[in-house]
């Protein structure tokens, strides 16, 4: 396989760089997956399915702290993007790793939450609320984890000066992960009715 | 048109057949017209007759009207169809005329249990009459039905009544029918329900009042012979004489195995 890509990849008839366009399409397809899950959750909730009063048992402060962590990490990835735009490889590298660290903190809090739930005998199959809780936060956590791995891979390229535009792409993805959490947090942690 | 294939045995089956005729003639008109135009163009503008093609963009109004006008006509036509469809729908599914009697059908993998309300006309009382795969109703009475399922989705379907309704575990779904023709008809499960879906049949028998009484008594005396099994052995009462039955000795070994598992 030749190292240089096809000419097609370099064209931008829309004026939007190809890679950014592709990430937007990827995210839009993800929106429908999470949207479907959230819609199902709300349907159950408003139809009065049993178990939804258990929303009071979720650890609101942990969720709130995680929201704060994710929002902060979104800020650092924006700073990484900004640094990459200015060609500041080392600063971009540093900020990407701040973001990865934010993701790590998020995952630790998540692990603590899961652990304490399971220690109290609450699991996947306790009732539909908890099934949703673990499915939605689990799927989201997988996205966080995936984002951390991708950012790790991208960061070393950036430090070497390749593919600086990828800071923006992982940033877009990270914002999406953040926004999903901003939807999940209120419906799972706050809306205890 | 449908009554050529299948008897009309309930009060709303005539309306439904009327709706079908409306659709067939209305849609058929458009279908034949469109197809004729298509075939005419295909023949008229073949290369040997029309060696040079015209340049028509279809963007000018004088050209596009040939497409737009038929399409406005279709909107008008759709409204007529929608009105007809909704009228029949409302009659069958959204109204509940006062009942003369009530029955309950319970589906499970892969048989039917029927509860007849008995003389008092109420379910879940002492005089209920229970049957398996055999439903008995009286001609000319309005029946309400309650549908339940013990396991998976089933569908309570009586083609001669033009009636179908899914049965959902955990829910009771109500509806109505009024039989208008005496005889025994197929009652099908019309929703995939597992390996035995193909044997989940039953019989619904529409009785005269006398025959209904006699059957109910026979069931309680234990002298009753199941219409369903009788039909399986003999084949149905022919809907019209042109239809002799398929030989029943072509039964598959699996059928017997499944049947004997009950």
């Amino acid at each position, binding site marked *: 396989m030749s190292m240089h890509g*096809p*000419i097609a*990849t370099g064209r931008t*008839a*829309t004026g939007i760089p190809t890679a950014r*366009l592709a990430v937007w399409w990827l995210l839009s397809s993800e929106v429908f997956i*999470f*949207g*479907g899950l959230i819609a*199902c959750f709300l*349907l159950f909730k408003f*139809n009065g399915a049993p178990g939804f009063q258990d929303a009071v048992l979720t650890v609101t402060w942990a969720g709130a702290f995680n929201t704060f962590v994710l929002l902060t990490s979104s800020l650092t990835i924006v700073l990484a993007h900004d640094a990459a735009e200015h060609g500041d490889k080392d600063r971009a590298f540093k900020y990407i790793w701040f973001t990865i660290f934010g993701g790590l903190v998020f995952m630790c809090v998540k692990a603590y939450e899961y652990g304490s739930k399971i220690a109290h005998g609450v699991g996947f*199959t306790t009732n*539909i609320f908890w*099934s949703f809780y673990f*499915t939605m936060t689990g799927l989201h956590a997988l996205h966080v984890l995936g984002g951390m791995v991708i950012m790790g891979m991208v960061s070393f390229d950036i430090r070497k000066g390749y593919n600086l535009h990828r800071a923006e792409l992982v940033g877009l993805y990270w914002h999406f992960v953040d926004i999903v959490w901003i939807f999940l947090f209120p419906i799972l942690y706050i809306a205890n009715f | *048109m449908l009554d050529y294939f*299948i008897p009309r045995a309930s009060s709303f089956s005539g309306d*439904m057949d009327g*709706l079908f005729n409306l*659709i067939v003639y209305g849609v058929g008109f458009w279908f034949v017209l469109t197809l004729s135009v298509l075939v005419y*163009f295909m023949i008229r*503008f*073949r*290369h040997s007759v*029309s060696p040079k*093609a*015209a340049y*028509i*963009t*279809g*963007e000018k109004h004088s*050209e596009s009207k040939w*497409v737009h006008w*038929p*399409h406005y006509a279709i909107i008008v036509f*759709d409204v007529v169809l*929608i009105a007809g469809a909704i009228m*029949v*729908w409302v009659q069958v599914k959204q109204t509940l005329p006062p009942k003369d009697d009530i029955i309950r059908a319970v589906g499970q993998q892969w048989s039917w249990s029927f509860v007849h309300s008995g003389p008092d006309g109420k379910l879940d009382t002492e005089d209920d009459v229970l049957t398996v795969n055999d439903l008995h109703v009286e001609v000319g009475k309005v029946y309400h039905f309650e549908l339940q399922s013990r396991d998976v*989705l089933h569908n309570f379907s009586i083609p001669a009544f033009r*009636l*179908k309704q*899914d049965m959902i575990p955990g829910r009771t779904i109500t509806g109505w029918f009024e039989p208008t023709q005496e005889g025994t008809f197929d009652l099908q499960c*019309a929703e*995939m*329900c*597992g*390996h*035995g879906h*193909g044997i989940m049949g039953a019989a619904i028998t529409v009785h005269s009042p006398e025959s209904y009484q006699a059957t109910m008594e026979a069931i309680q005396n234990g002298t009753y012979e199941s219409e369903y099994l009788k039909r399986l052995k003999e*084949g149905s009462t*022919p809907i019209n004489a*042109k239809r002799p*039955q*398929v030989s029943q000795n*072509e039964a*598959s070994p*699996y*059928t017997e195995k499944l049947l004997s598992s009950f």
Partner: protein
Amino acid sequence: MSQATTMTEAHAHDVHHEESFWTKYIFSVDHKVIGLQYMFLGLFMALVGGYFAYSFRMQLAFPGQEVPLYGLVSPAEYNMLVTNHGTIMIFWVAMPVLIAAFGNYMIPLMIGCDDMVFPRLNRLSIQVFFVSIVVLFISFFVEGGGFGGAWTSYPPLSSVAEYSLTNWGSSLWLLAVALEIVAFLIGGINFLTTTMNSRAPGMRMTDVPIAVWTINIAVIMFMASVGPLVAGAVMLFMDQRLGTTFFLPSAGGDPVLWQHLFWFFGHPEVYVVLFPAMGIVADIITTFSRKKLFGYRAILYTIIATGALSFVVWAHHQFVAGIDPRMANIFAVTTLLISVPIAEMLFCYIATLYGGSIRYELPMKWAMAFLISFLVGGVTGIPLGASGMDIFFHDTYFVIAHFHYTFFPIAILAMFAAIYYWYPKMFGRHMNKLLGEIHFWGTFLTFNGLFLPLFLVGMAGQHRRIYNYQHFPDLASADLQGIRIFATTSLVLLLLFQIPFIWNFFASMVTGEKAEANPWKANSLEWVAPSPPPHGNFKELPTVYRGPYEYSVPGNREDYWPQHMPDRN
């Protein structure tokens, strides 16, 4: 070396360094090779799906007897066969061949660039697709057999192993479908990005061939509709394997929710496969009638309108499924309204023929067969969308006949139209005309012989997915059985008539008459590239000056005017 060579030679000529068989044909990143891989896999799966159809139709015609080449069909196997016939034909035939194969092969050629924008993502897509086929095949052979709960897989039947009796079959089936969806999402992102960004210089949105438009619109619709189904599939999978109760009513779940998720995908899916077929047919009828497409923009708008409307019709599959009956009225209205844009689209196609100079080459014959058959499929949908009538027709063979009159034209007739049309481009040779004629007439006539009778048995109340009608005495009559035997005979003939095609397809690669770059004298850019196109597609990347349907333009010497030609032709 001449341009019209076999594929192997053309590749050897153009690649920079010698590549092994594996890197060239199996792990290639070339969009053309990936397109062909999709096509071969799709055609292979079509044979599998056809074999399944043969097996269960034989059981219906001659119940309880040994089916040649299969054996006895047990009820469980019958259910497995119908379920997987449906699943295969939709997910592993219609979508890969119409969208992935022709999309991959033709989009870069038709918009005038050298490859997809993400060639390696493209390779990942075909690899995931291949794995999905493997998983599906494994699901047939696990303990308990393949999944038999219908391609709609309604829970609780599909979610509880004690009900379906196919513990691993259900899960692997679901996993296979999920993998196939992932393959298409990956490929779809590639299609969209390529079409949006990599069009040849000068190519405006309205200069893009309808086939490219329709594939892209189909991909967008697929993305938007499949998301909730993916969510549902995750929930269903957890119900199956982890013991959650999302769809289990005894623990507060709701089985009807799955139906909404499934049909929210399932109905747009019909248009996801219809649109590429319509697009391919648009290109073919303009080429062979030497006419400009009647109302390019009108067609585009009707496609978009149909696509949008198709998202609000899904519950017409559930009229009698226990939804609120008032909801049915809304969905009956939206369902019948969808006939308006679809009819307008068909009218535009018919109007395109007006004033043309129609040459009945093989692709044109298939395209005309598509239009006629799809018309039948369209009008027979109306009794089903009319809520009152659907109470009778729900789950009868009328439904089967209706959707086969839509899917068969889409997935088979339009696919053959496309294969006969682009074969000279793909392999640099023509197919044999006589064998093609035999194949066409044999397929078209037996297809009608197969599905027209099913309308009749449907009107007699024959319901679906029953392995043997003797438990329903009203349906066990000899004349209904006669109709079943007639339909099955047609199916066997239909399958036999594919033999000339298979022979023609492979033999013509070697012995067919050599094809020039533009054998049909068509306008779009794929005909600028040599046949078959080498790696990199074009000798010189083209620039576009006009739309793809400028046929018989007054003042031109020739009756076609290719998109890349600056001057009058």
